[in-house]
């Protein structure tokens, strides 16, 4: 059933307790998680994740002007809406047969870099790290906190916190130093974003064909000076994450099993190189490989493909546990791609969304999320790829391909190297992210600050290139176009929390079909028609429990750490439930005495 092999344990008679968290907090959207926990063997035996929101973008966009798609799809997500607008514009540019001027690409790239810096920072420090803060660890693993008080921080010379417990204290909500500083940093980075894209989170200045942002010297110097003021915070974040996560491996041997999945990662690439990207489907493989984060599908640690055409053709939208009718007997919109390859009926280009609200049955249909899968020809399997929360898959894919070699970021040999300039107090620093042994909760969390550093380094390059263009008088930012009568398009991008693709079909100058596939459907999907669980379910199912509390005052922090490691962003939900036909011993939801905030 599961895609990750189960772990051998010396079994005791099971003591099964049902536990659920609905809604899950400190995420974007409605998520409920329903689990069964075996307290005798201290592991999670079953997990269902459910999303409880349906709004119907692909339904109400039909028949609308395709140029409106970027403005509308931004509203899918309230933290990374700009990723949708960007991706939609990529798809439209393919359909309209146009390419924006280079300056427009740089401005978009700078905006997206600021989004990564903002979003990963607020998510990691204000939402995720609350699960590792002193108050939380005290309530769940007092023994670990006592040890943290005695453990010196190996990288204290960089971040300034003497002990691991001092780091944990800095994450206490609304009180901790880093918690409060991260809120401020999240505002500075959003100001940088607004310089390029006008407004956060639904940008005002992005258009198919380019941007409306005026490339004045001021926007670049304003961006640069803000970036230089936060560059040391970025270096410290990496050091603090490394210290905290290394400590967890040490203090709780076996913690690598928490949230561990078989390595099944997907990344669709980020940041276009304007010298290569022409948005034609025929050349998509070339310009995809020229992106500054390399696309890739990784199975068991090996790169299966980094060709966006293969990636596109392999996408399958499965049902099985979702509140929708199937569309497989409808007329297809796209039978062959522009290169003549056959397109599957389960591909987003051919999807019809037919919502059927119904009762939630965990042994039947239980989620508004569908089950995106990637068809792996070699094994004839539909893989439940995950994004590792975004950064893990991006770094892994880039490191394996070894194609990125720029002014401040280089890749290959199993690692990604990032060079950051001198800041207010810390010297020039080279960071190296190495491919880890596991795809697990801790490594998803560790990758995040490294990717903030990656985005900061790329931003420096985009700034330099923008200024070069500006000084050369290359200030055109928009390429006009005509909407064709009939066309298809697809866009590939990395939303903050992972893979994002938009699939568009135009007929009679109107949207005939539009299906966006953000990262969360990949990560939060329910069991598909083959019974394969989605990544959250799979990662939680079978994971060990390290929390010191018993069933009566159980908080479920290890489970929540796993779920949050994926950076859930569902305007939707996750639920846990007990298996069919099993007697329910106890049902209750954990509580956390919120003595903070």
């Amino acid at each position, binding site marked *: 059933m599961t895609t990750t092999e189960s772990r051998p344990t010396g079994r005791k008679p099971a003591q099964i307790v049902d536990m659920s968290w609905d809604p899950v907090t400190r995420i974007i959207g409605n998520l409920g998680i329903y689990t069964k926990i075996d307290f005798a063997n201290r592991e999670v035996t079953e997990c269902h994740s459910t999303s409880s929101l349906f*709004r119907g973008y692909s339904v109400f966009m039909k028949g609308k002007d395709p140029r409106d798609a970027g403005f509308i799809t931004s509203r899918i997500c309230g933290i990374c809406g700009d990723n949708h607008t960007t991706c939609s514009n990529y798809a439209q540019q393919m359909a309209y047969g146009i390419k924006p001027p280079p300056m427009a690409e740089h401005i978009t790239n700078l905006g997206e870099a600021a989004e990564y810096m903002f979003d990963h920072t607020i998510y990691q420090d204000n939402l995720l790290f609350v699960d590792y803060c002193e108050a939380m660890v005290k309530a769940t693993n007092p023994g670990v906190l006592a040890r943290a008080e005695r453990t010196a921080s190996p990288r204290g010379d960089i971040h300034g916190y003497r002990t691991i417990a001092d780091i944990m204290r800095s994450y206490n909500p609304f009180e901790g130093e880093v918690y409060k500083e991260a809120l401020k940093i999240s505002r500075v980075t959003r100001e940088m974003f607004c310089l390029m894209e*006008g407004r956060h989170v639904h940008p005002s200045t992005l258009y198919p064909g380019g941007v409306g942002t005026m490339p004045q010297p001021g926007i670049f110097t304003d961006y640069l000076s803000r970036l230089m003021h936060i560059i040391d915070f970025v270096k410290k974040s990496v050091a603090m994450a490394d210290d905290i996560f290394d400590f967890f491996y040490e203090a709780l041997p076996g913690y690598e099993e928490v949230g561990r999945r078989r390595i099944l990662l997907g990344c669709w690439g980020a940041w276009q190189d304007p010298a290569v990207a022409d948005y034609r489907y025929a050349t998509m493989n070339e310009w995809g490989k020229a992106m500054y984060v390399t696309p890739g599908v990784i199975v068991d640690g090996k790169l299966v493909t980094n060709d966006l055409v293969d990636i596109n053709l392999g996408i399958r939208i499965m049902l099985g546990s979702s509140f929708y009718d199937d569309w497989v007997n409808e007329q297809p919109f796209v039978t062959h791609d522009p290169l003549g390859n056959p397109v599957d009926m389960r591909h987003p280009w051919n999807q019809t969304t037919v919502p059927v609200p*119904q009762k939630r049955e965990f042994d039947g249909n239980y989620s508004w999320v569908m089950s995106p899968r990637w068809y792996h020809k070699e094994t004839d399997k539909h893989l439940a790829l995950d994004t590792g929360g975004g950064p893990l898959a991006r770094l892994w894919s880039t490191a394996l391909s070894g194609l990125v070699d720029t002014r401040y970021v280089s890749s290959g040999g199993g690692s990604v190297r990032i060079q950051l300039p001198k800041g207010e107090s810390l010297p020039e620093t080279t960071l190296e992210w190495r491919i880890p042994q596991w795809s697990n909760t801790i490594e998803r969390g560790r990758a995040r600050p490294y990717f903030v550093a990656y985005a900061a380094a790329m931003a420096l390059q985009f700034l330099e290139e923008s200024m070069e263009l500006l000084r050369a008088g290359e200030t055109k930012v928009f390429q006009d176009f005509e909407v064709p009568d009939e066309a298809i398009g697809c866009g590939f991008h990395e939303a903050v929390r992972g893979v994002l693709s938009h699939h568009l079909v135009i007929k009679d100058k109107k949207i005939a079909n539009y299906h966006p596939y953000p990262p969360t459907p990949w990560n939060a999907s329910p069991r598909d028609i083959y019974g394969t669980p989605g990544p959250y379910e799979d990662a939680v199912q079978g994971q060990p429990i390290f929390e010191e509390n018993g069933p009566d005052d159980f908080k479920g922090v290890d489970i929540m750490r796993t779920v949050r490691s994926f950076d859930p962003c569902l305007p939707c939900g996750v639920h846990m439930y007990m298996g069919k036909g099993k007697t329910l011993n106890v049902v209750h939801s954990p509580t956390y005495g919120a003595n903070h905030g």
Partner: protein
Amino acid sequence: MTSESHTTAARERIERSEEHEGIDEITILWISEGMSCDGDTVSLTAAMQPSIEDVVLGLIPGLPKVNLVNKVLSPSLGGEDFLTPYRQAARGELDTPFILVIEGSVPNQDIIEGDGFWTSFGNDPATGQPQTINWWIDQLAPKAWAVVAAGTCATYGGIHGMAGNPTGSMGLGDYLGWDYRSTAGLPIVNVPGCPIQPENFMETLVWVLQHAAGDAPPPPLDHMLRPQWLFGKTVHEGCDRGSYYEQADFGLDYNSPKCMVKTGCWGPVVNCNVPKRGWMAGIGGCPNVGGICIGCTMPGFPDAFMPFMDEPPGGTLSSMVIKPYGAIIRRLRGVTNEMVNHEPKWRHRKNKLTSGYDPYWRP
């Protein structure tokens, strides 16, 4: 209830609210489980004057103690622990008055035949099935000290209520009735925007809190229940590209730094202060920085403004009318501009002062 007796009752409630004792402690129950993207919560965290942590930590004088309950920012692990104050409030047992903030459109649950739901917030303890947002609003709105709608989805329906939507989404006023009054006698306080401009929301919230403390009258709202001081002017009236319009000088594509009426901007007829205020710390905005106004604060959003990138129908006529005036004015200004670009002739290096200096000058 006849409308007359209804008005009397409303007037009595308002009078009561004006006499109300100051409140020392108040809870904000924020529900973003409408048809929402959580963008208004995220936008709230961008505010700096004041920031949400300033309000929660008591930095702003004269406000009641504020307990903020918001899913995205909650330190709780979630589930029932997080839902406790909501459940208490629904039973009328919360130990403080509460402000209900709704984020997201309200779907129409009545169009679903049989079981099922469009969006939920926790479960119904009796059945274990998802508890609809509609149930929560029905329970909480009658007991709320004040109700605030955050963002255009909650105020008027927004994107999820566009033509062809399958969920029957609407705004809170449509759902509760536009004559709804809270226990303090307040109408719904609408802060539109897709998403809310961070300071627009915080300023309104602070005013409501000052009112709760007994230090201020209720916030002044217009006929669509928007704060008058924020939405009383149009985008165009605060836009630094508006002067190009006056000179009939229009951008014809997005490469232009000039007025964008011809390329889809609806600024002249949209109630919003964003170009004047910027988005954050005075940075960004919409037409002032090259982004067409798509009317995202308006009750007619989005349908009335689509397709966004085409010239608004009214723009064709008004730009034609302004053309002769603008053309003349622009040329005359050009002449004057040329004149004032010259320095006066008495600035020179000759060995003679020609400025007209006379120490004994008398009128």
